[in-house]
């Protein structure tokens, strides 16, 4: 069937980011959903439990008592061979931390929607993006989405990727800005999705006919030498995941007519300053880039979509051609700098040319990040030779200052 025809098989619906995630999980025929409510994720789970209660999704829904249990349920259900899904945010993600490692190193192909917002104290549901990036060491793949369409699509892709490389995948998007705002989203027909995403096939699962041991120690005999090889294998899987993702994205385009890249470049070919950003910051930055281009400034945007594994070489290849790199983080890795800035600096170290990197941190603790902040960041980068320090605070004055 031609791509054009396929793109017609479905309907447009006005969906919030949260409902897009729920729709993605439903279309992916998730079999076991274990989740705990937390703002701003709760509506994902409410919608899913509605689908299940009405029989639209033939899954088992387990209303667990904490996020730690949610992920623990899924890790074992995954070992049991089921396709699993959950969603969380903020404290919930932090509470899951131990189990994220378990699922990552345990290679469970779980897909989770992460709706980023702040980590307390205070226990506020403010907009921030430190929860998801803070879990980058756990072995999970991370995709950061820009639109509600992308959320739905990425969840479907995530299962293909996860079940191919046996790694769990986070599909990350902003709390409130995306989760609670509505966009027209094309919801494909179940049949089309089934054609792209077959049921999970796994060679190994918990099965009374085979006394296999899941997540267990190989014991004194094999021990450390063997486990080290296993760790290295997880890294190998991440490297393979990058290529697999590209293939899956291509295949997705063939089925659904929508194209995604592991990172997206907007007007970067001749840019002097390239802004690097993720999620809604990137989508706002589009307009800033266009505005500044009208004014004759050679600016461009690189939106990071795949954050783990981090496509360092490919991103460096693009960024090295700019004179300046500006990066906006809505998070702080305390004691260092913004997390995306860290990743870029490491990526650029191996590049032939190393433009200075201006690391901006703004829009934390619920403080809005506006277009004027983005514009400021780019202009600042233009105006300065080198950044003064590792962090340039965007709209956040020092403690002693007024404001």
């Amino acid at each position, binding site marked *: 069937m031609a791509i054009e025809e396929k793109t017609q098989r479905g309907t447009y619906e006005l969906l919030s980011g949260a409902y897009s995630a729920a729709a993605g999980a439903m279309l992916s025929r998730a*079999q076991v959903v274990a989740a705990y409510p937390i703002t701003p994720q709760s509506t994902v789970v409410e919608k899913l439990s509605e689908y299940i209660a009405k029989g639209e999704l033939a899954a088992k829904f387990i209303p667990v008592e904490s996020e730690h249990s949610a992920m*623990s349920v899924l890790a074992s259900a995954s070992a049991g061979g089921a396709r699993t899904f959950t969603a969380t945010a903020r404290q919930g993600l932090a509470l899951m931390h131990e189990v994220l490692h378990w699922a990552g190193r345990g290679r469970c192909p779980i897909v989770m929607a992460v709706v980023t917002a702040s980590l307390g104290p205070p226990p506020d549901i403010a907009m921030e993006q430190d929860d998801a990036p803070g879990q980058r060491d756990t072995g999970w793949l991370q995709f950061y989405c820009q639109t509600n369409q992308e959320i739905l699509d990425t969840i479907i892709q995530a299962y293909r990727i996860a079940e191919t490389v046996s790694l769990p995948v986070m599909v990350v998007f902003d709390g409130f800005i995306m989760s609670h705002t509505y966009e027209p989203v094309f919801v494909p027909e179940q049949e089309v999705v089934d054609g792209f995403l077959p049921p999970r096939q796994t060679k190994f699962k918990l099965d009374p006919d*085979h006394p296999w041991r*899941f997540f267990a*120690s190989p014991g004194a005999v094999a021990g450390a030498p063997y486990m080290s090889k296993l760790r290295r294998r997880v890294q190998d899987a991440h490297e393979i995941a990058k290529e697999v993702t590209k293939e899956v994205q291509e295949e997705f385009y063939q089925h659904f007519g929508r194209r995604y890249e592991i990172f997206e470049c907007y007007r970067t070919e001749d840019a002097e300053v390239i802004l690097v950003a993720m999620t809604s910051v990137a989508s706002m930055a589009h307009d800033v880039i266009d505005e500044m281009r009208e004014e004759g400034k050679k600016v461009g945007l690189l939106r990071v979509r795949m954050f783990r594994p981090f496509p360092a070489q490919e991103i460096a290849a693009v960024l090295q051609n700019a004179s300046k790199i500006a990066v906006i983080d809505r998070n702080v890795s305390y004691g260092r700098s913004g997390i995306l800035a860290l990743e870029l600096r490491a990526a650029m170290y191996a590049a032939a040319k190393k433009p200075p990197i201006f690391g901006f941190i703004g829009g934390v603790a619920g403080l809005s990040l506006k277009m004027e902040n983005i514009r400021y960041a780019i202009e600042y980068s233009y105006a300065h030779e080198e950044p003064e320090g590792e962090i340039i605070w965007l709209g956040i004055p020092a403690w002693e200052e007024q404001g």
Partner: protein
Amino acid sequence: MIKTKTLKQFGIEIPEAEYAPPGHTACGGCPGAAMLRQMLKFLGPRVIMTNPASCSGYFGRALEVPLCRCLFEAAAASGTGIRAALDVMGDKETHVLVFAGDGGTYDIGIQALSAAAERNENLIYACYDNEGYMMTGMQRSSATPAGAWSTTTPLPQPKRERKKDIVAIMAAHRIPYIATASIAYPNDFVSKVLKARETEGMRFFNLLAPCPTGWRFESRLSVKLARMAIQSRLFALVEVEDGIHWKVKQPKETIPVRDYIKAQGRFSHLKEADIEAIEKDVDEEWKLLIAKASVVEEI
């Protein structure tokens, strides 16, 4: 037809099949290992086991049933996940056995356990209770009885708090079946495993596992202590159905509590006044237990 051996002193049949072969690294004389071996005989071959950090990591080294290790807090959640996977794939037959220690049940795992009980998850949760964090070096848990020495309640301050009443806690969740058991009463233990096997919904066991290493006694006396615990009434053999019908087995021949206490090194520091206080407490607790019971049988 399952091949069985007769336990001639009791006239009951025990399946021959071994799912917990020798070569595991539990301490010699561990009743937890013995009780797991027996439970698997009756639940196998179609059973999947999950276990958190605990001594069960030692005696679950090479089982002839599939094993899913899980995090310390997550025993009941792990069991829930396995059950969910089996259910969505249409397998209602295979048993899910969660086998955790008292640490993973009474303390760090109690949240997940309470939630699974509230949801009446269709699994068997067996806590083998050696009254402390024995695998990590005999630290106290909320299952450690009052007066006991442990590495985190060393002298001169042994544990003050009484042992948590896990049976009452589980009963409050109104799950279909709860039972306590001791390896020294094989008939009782086996009948309870069989009853649990035939019941649907959440089934909870508290299995007394006197620990030679942590309680400080010779390993050959494990079963004897498991008997003395019942005879002294410091540990009760009970069943609770639907959280409200309590059945208590009353020992025909009782022994003084002090006999049981004095057989364990972890109590060797107790003075006469302490022992008398414990004896008084046992009497009072027993009265309360009998008052709750709708059926009292002799054993």
